[in-house]
């Protein structure tokens, strides 16, 4: 009888211990490591938290006055006049090619389609689920949408639409612009932009002269 009692108590102890152990192995903390000094870097790591930085975060805004690589000045101001001016006179320097159209579509589907819809009719998923309202169609008669305007809006945003300058670079913004103009044409039933019959070389040069890297804005 007494041995029985003991084994019972033993079992209880083991059970309680396992329960405790299992509930201890939380998901909230990283695992143990062998020789952490081989794993943990001496240098400051991306997204690390260190005392030396303001706010303790490695991720910070670029220093005042920084110019990202490949950045080109954009002279139109972030005002209504600036927008109207860009609409009137800014044009797409990018040669139309199958490649740029395809890139433009891919980028548009990433950045713009959630709101504007893949067709540009203003019926993106967020609009359909009524999370964000009042997205215009590119064919909206009250809006005069031109290449310059589309680029300007991506650069600075417009009212409740934000700026996309931190996510895309100059080349990518012009590629998106091409696709948007195509969507507008399709909505209005006008002819689409198609690649001109250009020699391979000119298109390649055109693309190379556009900065590949760097974001177009100092704002991040």
């Amino acid at each position, binding site marked *: 009888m007494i041995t029985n009692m003991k084994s019972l108590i033993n079992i209880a102890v083991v059970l309680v211990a396992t329960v405790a152990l299992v509930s201890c192995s939380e998901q909230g903390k990283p*695992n143990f490591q062998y020789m952490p000094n081989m794993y943990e870097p001496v240098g400051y790591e991306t997204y690390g938290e260190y005392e030396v930085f303001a706010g303790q975060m490695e991720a910070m805004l670029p220093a005042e006055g920084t110019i990202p690589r490949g950045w080109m000045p954009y002279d139109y101001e972030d005002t209504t006049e600036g927008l109207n001016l860009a609409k009137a006179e800014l044009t797409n320097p990018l040669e139309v090619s199958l490649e740029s159209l395809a890139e433009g579509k891919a980028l548009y589907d990433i950045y713009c389609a959630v709101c504007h819809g893949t067709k540009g009719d203003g019926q993106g998923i967020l609009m359909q689920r009524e999370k964000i309202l009042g997205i215009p169609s590119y064919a909206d008669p009250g809006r005069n949408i031109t290449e310059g305007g589309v680029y300007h809006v991506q650069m600075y945003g417009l009212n409740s639409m934000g700026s996309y300058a931190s996510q895309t670079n100059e080349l990518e913004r012009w590629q998106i612009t091409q696709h948007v103009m195509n969507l507008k044409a399709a909505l209005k039933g006008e002819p689409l932009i198609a690649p001109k019959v250009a020699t391979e070389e000119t298109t390649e040069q055109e693309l190379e002269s556009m900065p590949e890297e760097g974001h177009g804005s100092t704002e991040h």
Partner: protein
Amino acid sequence: MDNNITDRMEKVSYRNLPSKLSLALLALVLTFSISNSAFASTTVLPTQAADTTAGEALFKANCAACHKLGKKATGPALRGVGDKYDREWLYSWIKNSTAMVKSGDAQAVAIYEEYNKSVMTSFPALTNADIDNIIAYTYTQPKTVVLPPTPPGTESSGGGVSNNIILGILSLVFLMLVVILYLVNNTLRNFAKSQGIEVEEKEARTPIWKLFIQNQFLVLVTSILLLLTAGYFGYGYLMQVGVDQGYAPVQPIHYSHRIHAGENQIDCNYCHSSARKSKHSGIPSLNVCMNCHKNIGEVAAETQLQGEQEFGVDYNAEIQKLYKAVGWDEENQAYTGVTEPVKWVRIHNLPDFAYFNHSQHVTVGGIECQKCHGPVEEMEIMSQHSPLTMGWCINCHRETNIKVEGNDYYTKIHDELAKKYGKDKLTAAEMGGLECGKCHY
């Protein structure tokens, strides 16, 4: 606030009463016989009579980008705007506000100046009736969603917590059982003793364990078995040291991939925009969040309810944390300039001696994020899906074909390698994806 609105509504009907007394009387009679909507479509009448449903659709399609009913957005709050101006003014303002400002209309210029000369879009296509409908819609009260009663047992605690509670209770019950058994046993014994009953002790047989020890073969086999299992589990334990699979730290803002990437189907690259072209995918800076959250200050009532019931999170409070961090003043729709960093806890992290590049896999290799990061679009809380061990990298390099199509740059190498291995499809390993130097600096 709400009182205010009802006040205003009364005022409207008052003002309209004297002038349209006869019509209103007619309306009264009509309301008793005909349903409300029929009445609205047949008579041109005060604000409330217009078709609010049509108005709502128009408002959402045209105006909601800049106007909210009860709150300032890009433009002023529109609730009750019908009282602020007379109807003719509103017609011409909405159809072409720019022209009105240009013409020097005092009211128009005043509001234009107040809103920093932001231009309201012109809506030449709207008819007066459309505008009446929209104005009528602006008088509607915000919908209050009636929360269904919480089903018993699903309190606002997360699943993990309630599991723990159940476990705790079970072990408590178990402990109490043991104690009770012990006490009962004791009392019985005492009782037996006092009654003078001799408790029958079984005659001393050799206990099983002694027999077991005496049988040396059995002992040998069991100890080998024990050693093997111990070895197995020990090895397993040692091998998972330093592997953070399943690591899901608490983040400073409860940000849900389920809601963003899942329900609202936002592309991974929208936020992790550098995955396309650089080593790191990057955590989005807060200006990216604000592209949407300038508009979304509160989640929908159903979302909020689900958050509270299933995950125990107040989603609206989480969005407020975001606003605090970027310094967004919702009241005035402007940045205050007072910001604080959001200290996201990094989850996936290779040791410094290993090199991993996202663009190489995502853009060049064309691999889906989910292949390595798991079903992110279902994760309420982000967790590490893959072990990120060297074996994991190598296995995949052995199994996965490289994307040869549309890769002009390496065509020649690919052709040569294809010839060397004598097949069209090459795995990453065959291209050199197993060379130590490719991953170790």
